[in-house]
């Protein structure tokens, strides 16, 4: 408590005299590590999987040939699929650990509160309020720790990994799964796997990239998922409710951190821009293939 009080004093002090900007920790190493696994496995899965979905286009043939043939692409697809299962399980373990050990509020209050990913009434209000703000019909809603589009991103990945992961596992080991379910479920699994993957790739490479990184406030990249750090100004502007609540509770200083280093910012940009490039290539490929299929 003494330490926090000291920081509180420091905070008002620096605010008053306008010293260097303060930085806060938003994502810890574990979060950043899991997101790195998501980036690597997701790009890998999309690039090794889409050629099969669009196997009749020349693009797919070239891409698969570049990877050493569709057999090799299929091998790596399974490797990236295994990484996906790894981060999914690691996340579930962390979520369980959080609920059991780290949670510092009653279960229901946490579940419906700002520190959980569960969408609740506030999120619905925020969607409406945000759209009204888009249209110039109101103030921008004040967001908390997780915005509604972030919760959607999270739940979409959660749902996506569930659907794509389970259907993928079925198609990986059909002889085993045929002991449990009839063979026509593989036909269903293929449709789910393929179209859910299209949804995921299309969503991440356009909507997620824009909402999180490319929109004018963040352009060209929001480095927070790479460096873990958010500046005080951005914290106040983007997540005023969380900022104010923590300030009132006196827990804000516990999140205070050093500014991101130049090296970490450079790495964030390198990784981010590679992901943009790959995403853009894949989006163009998907659009081209979809248009070709229409003809």
């Amino acid at each position, binding site marked *: 408590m003494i330490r926090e009080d000291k920081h509180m004093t420091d905070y008002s002090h620096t605010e008053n005299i306008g010293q260097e900007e303060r930085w806060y920790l938003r994502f810890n190493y574990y979060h950043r590590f899991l997101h790195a696994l998501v980036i690597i496995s997701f790009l890998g899965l999309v690039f090794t999987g889409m050629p099969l979905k669009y196997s009749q286009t020349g693009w797919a043939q070239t891409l698969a040939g570049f990877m050493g043939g569709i057999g090799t692409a299929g091998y790596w697809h399974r490797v990236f699929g295994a990484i996906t299962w790894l981060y999914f399980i690691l996340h579930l373990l962390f979520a369980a650990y959080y609920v059991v050990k780290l949670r510092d509020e009653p279960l229901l209050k946490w579940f419906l509160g700002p520190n959980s990913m569960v969408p609740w009434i506030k999120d619905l209000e925020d969607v409406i309020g945000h759209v009204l703000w888009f249209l*110039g019909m109101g103030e921008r809603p004040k967001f908390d720790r997780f915005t509604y589009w972030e919760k959607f991103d999270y739940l979409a990945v959660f749902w996506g990994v569930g659907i794509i992961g389970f259907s993928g596992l079925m198609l990986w080991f059909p*002889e085993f799964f045929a002991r449990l379910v009839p063979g026509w479920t593989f036909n269903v699994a293929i449709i789910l796997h393929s*179209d859910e993957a*299209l949804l995921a790739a299309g969503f991440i490479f356009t909507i997620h990239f824009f909402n999180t990184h490319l929109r004018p406030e963040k352009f060209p990249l929001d480095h927070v998922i790479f460096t873990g750090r958010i500046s005080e100004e951005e914290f106040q502007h983007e997540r005023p409710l969380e900022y104010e609540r923590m300030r009132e509770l006196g827990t804000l200083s516990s999140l205070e951190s050093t500014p991101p280093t130049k090296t970490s910012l450079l790495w964030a940009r390198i990784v981010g821009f590679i992901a943009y490039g790959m995403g853009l290539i894949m989006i163009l490929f998907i659009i081209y293939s979809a248009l070709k299929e229409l003809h």
Partner: protein
Amino acid sequence: MRQVLFAAFVLLAAASSALAMSTSDCFDCHSDDTLTKVVRGSEISLFVDEGIYGQSIHGDLDCTDCHEDVADVEDEHEEELKPVHCSNCHDDAAEEMEAADHPADCSDCHGKHDILPRSDSRSSVYDLKVPGTCGTCHSGQETPDVIAQYESGMHGMVLLRSGMIFSAVCNDCHGSHDIRGASDPASMVARANINSTCAACHQGVVEKYKKSIHGEIFADSPEDAPVCTSCHSAHDTERAMDDTFLLTVVNRCSSCHEEMGYTFSKNYHGQVTGMGYTRAAQCPDCHGAHDILPTDDPASMAHPDNLVATCGKCHPGANRNFTLYMPHADYHDGQNYPMLYYVYLAMVILLTGTFAFFGIHTLLWLIRASIEKSRNRSGGAH
């Protein structure tokens, strides 16, 4: 014995035409390798190599046995001789040539003064030499180049690369003297005859074929059934286990079974095959090849009762449940696959809904955020 008979024959011939040209008379002039004449502007050699002629199968005959119009000439013969008639002796071959439509002279394939029996490895119609001999007319002048195709095909490789003279050469399929175009019903390569032609070597395969559904249809109406060459190329014949065959066999089957080819290409086996991955199943893996039968025939590989074994070839441990997978399913076809269709429809709605909502959301956000940013910038300037 033969030599005695021949000596008698020579003596008789010499006695009966003491005044006529003898072979040695001919060689007085024709052993000169500078002897030429001009035919239609080009100089052609009139030289005959006595040694080669002597070793040829006709080496024991007199020149005048073939060049009959010289027989009664005493000194110098006419510059222009009449054509020789091989048919005087080889009447069977000549009759076949007459009936067929192959516009070649005997000498085009067999040579002239150097003719050897076809069992002699120096003969132009020795098995190893046949493709080259036919190629003097048929190579590089036709599209497709059948000789080049043959050389890269299985029969050609076995013959020319592996040197196995039992491999099929041109005349094994097209005949030697009765060479006819494929559109001639009497041709060895006519649609109705091609199976028997292949059966000369591939007897076992053709027996299997006869019991298959394709063979059954062929027995009734050859025009409606696939024959050997419908699936196996005529000249550039592939080995059925080679990638080039496995990757194209689907197209060959689809040329009749169009719908099945389409639905195959839309499912996993077909997609990876389309990408060049031959370890996946192609048509013959599930349906059989020469012994192919309709799926509802209990003996068919693809009959439901046999699928555990058929799928099990690639999927060890496949059970009855496993065989309920539908390798030709088409989820666009709501009539036959209603459940797949509705799953697909649900996914389309999910995708369209998500992209429509977030597409508009993103666009509006972009506009608003851009306005705010430019306002802040101009506001900051004050």
